[in-house]
């Protein structure tokens, strides 16, 4: 059984249908990419699957269980994590604290125990600090660990989002344009990072515009156009599909 199954999913805003009858399945352990021209509905698709939007029609199943319309915080409990195309970093916190928020569900969140500082809470928190440290090293941000997030450069923040998502120990990770706005060297680093993540037994679903990166690291690719599924297949199949070439006419596929 596939880890994630999307069935005839549709979403309309007022009269505009942003995603229309899209179906696909993602097998465990793959890097699965979603591509398509601007406005094809990629981010909307992500927002639907991760619970930020409620689908108008269709179903989404994770591990065979329907998750359509389930709230984001409940999805996190099921092992889902994501990053955002427009950075969603907590600028009022340090980089390390941002990563620690990712581990929220693994901690004791009791209010009374927190106020009275039960020993378990303090101990677990300092253990987490070490793990968060480790994660920041993993994404290559060790030198920023004690810095306020607001004083970090854009490229580092992109990676901080990935570290935060990984702190949740997800089984499936959605990356929404992790390389957007980065130069080619930074993009190469993200490319490498995504491979490392996928190598750690995390299923990765990726939206990305950088075709070199997508073709390089994807096991399977879904192509959206005007909210509809155009085709799906391996990098080679997609690259040779005449419809895809038509949709991207003038671009560099």
């Amino acid at each position: 059984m596939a880890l994630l199954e999307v069935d005839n999913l549709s979403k309309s805003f007022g009269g505009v249908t942003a995603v229309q009858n899209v179906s696909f399945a993602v097998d465990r352990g793959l890097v699965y990419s979603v591509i398509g021209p601007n406005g094809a509905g990629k981010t909307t698709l992500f927002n639907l699957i991760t619970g930020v939007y409620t689908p108008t029609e269709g179903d989404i199943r994770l591990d065979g269980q329907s998750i359509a319309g389930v709230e984001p915080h409940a999805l996190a409990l099921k092992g889902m994590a994501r990053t955002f195309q427009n950075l969603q970093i907590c600028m009022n916190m340090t980089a390390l604290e941002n990563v620690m928020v990712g581990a929220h569900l693994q901690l004791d969140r009791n209010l009374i125990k927190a106020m009275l500082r039960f020993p378990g809470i303090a101990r677990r928190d300092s253990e987490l600090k070490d793990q968060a440290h480790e994660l920041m090293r993993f994404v290559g941000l060790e030198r920023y660990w004690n810095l306020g997030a607001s004083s970090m450069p854009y490229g580092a923040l992109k990676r901080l989002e990935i570290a935060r998502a990984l702190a949740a120990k997800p089984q499936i990770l959605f990356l929404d344009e992790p390389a957007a706005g980065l130069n080619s060297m930074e993009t190469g680093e993200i490319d490498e990072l995504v491979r490392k993540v996928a190598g750690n037994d995390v299923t990765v679903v990726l939206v990305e515009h950088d075709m070199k990166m997508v073709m390089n690291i994807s096991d399977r690719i879904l192509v959206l156009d005007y909210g509809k599924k155009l085709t799906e297949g391996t990098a080679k199949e997609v690259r040779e599909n005449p419809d895809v070439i038509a949709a991207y006419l003038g671009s560099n596929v």
Partner: protein
Amino acid sequence: MSVLKRQYPLMILAGVLLLLPLVLPNNYYYDIAIRMAINAIIVLGLNLLIGFAGQISLGHAGFVGVGAYASAILPSQFGWHPLLAMGAGAAIASTIAAIVARPIFRLKGHYLAMATLGLGIIIAIVIKNEAAYTGGPDGMPVAPLGLMGFEISGEKQWYWVLAAILLFSFWAARNLIDSPFGRALRALHGSEVASQVMGVDVVRYKVTIFVLSAFFASLMGSVTAHYIGFVTPNIADFFHSIELMTMVVVGGMASIYGSLIGAVLLTALPQALSTFEGWETVAFGSILILCMIFMPKGLVPTLAARFGRNGQEDR
């Protein structure tokens, strides 16, 4: 950070509270110190809501009023023990907060401001109108607070009671912020959608912190009522809500130390201005505006940043 070093601020506060009576010349100054402590405790709770979680409340005096009037009415008219009445007041305030919080916290910015303000005003109007119980606009006397045959009376005794509560609140607030719960609170301020996808049930957190701050506001309302021995509807009115919010804002949003400083400064201000009848309101207003323009983060965070300390670690 070592356990000892973590508690330095607590020890400093304890030291200040212990030594303060040595320099307080008379009951008038004790009285001011007590009012500062009461406000500081309310503001600590309110700052968790406004500063840390980023949710505005313009009606918190309503909760203070609930506690004050519970302590005034229940013992004198229904024969309840004052402590029980205090608990009941806090329970009522928390329940009101919990009931309205869910729908309120789906709202943002202006709407949230309006809803909390409306709630506060309704409470104030009820207090003013139910004269049979509350004595109406003239207020009513409050029985003294007795504990196991011992009655708390006089400024000096009240001072020590409030010093103890303040110390506990300060300790608990710092613990809370430095915990997974507190981190989630700050995270939802930073980015709601991000904290949501990381598993933070955003609405539940906002509701919880709102209820907690209402609980403490109500307790302090009860304490105020017993301490002064008399309550008037002013304790619940809009202007009092604004005073409390001003303390949060001036001292520093999302700053525990700021809450203390804000409460101390703005409790002292009306005393200092009392010779200039009417200028109090103008001064409050000007301070709000100037503070928001020139140091929107408030006194403590702004100064901490100015003197090069990393504001993030220095809460």
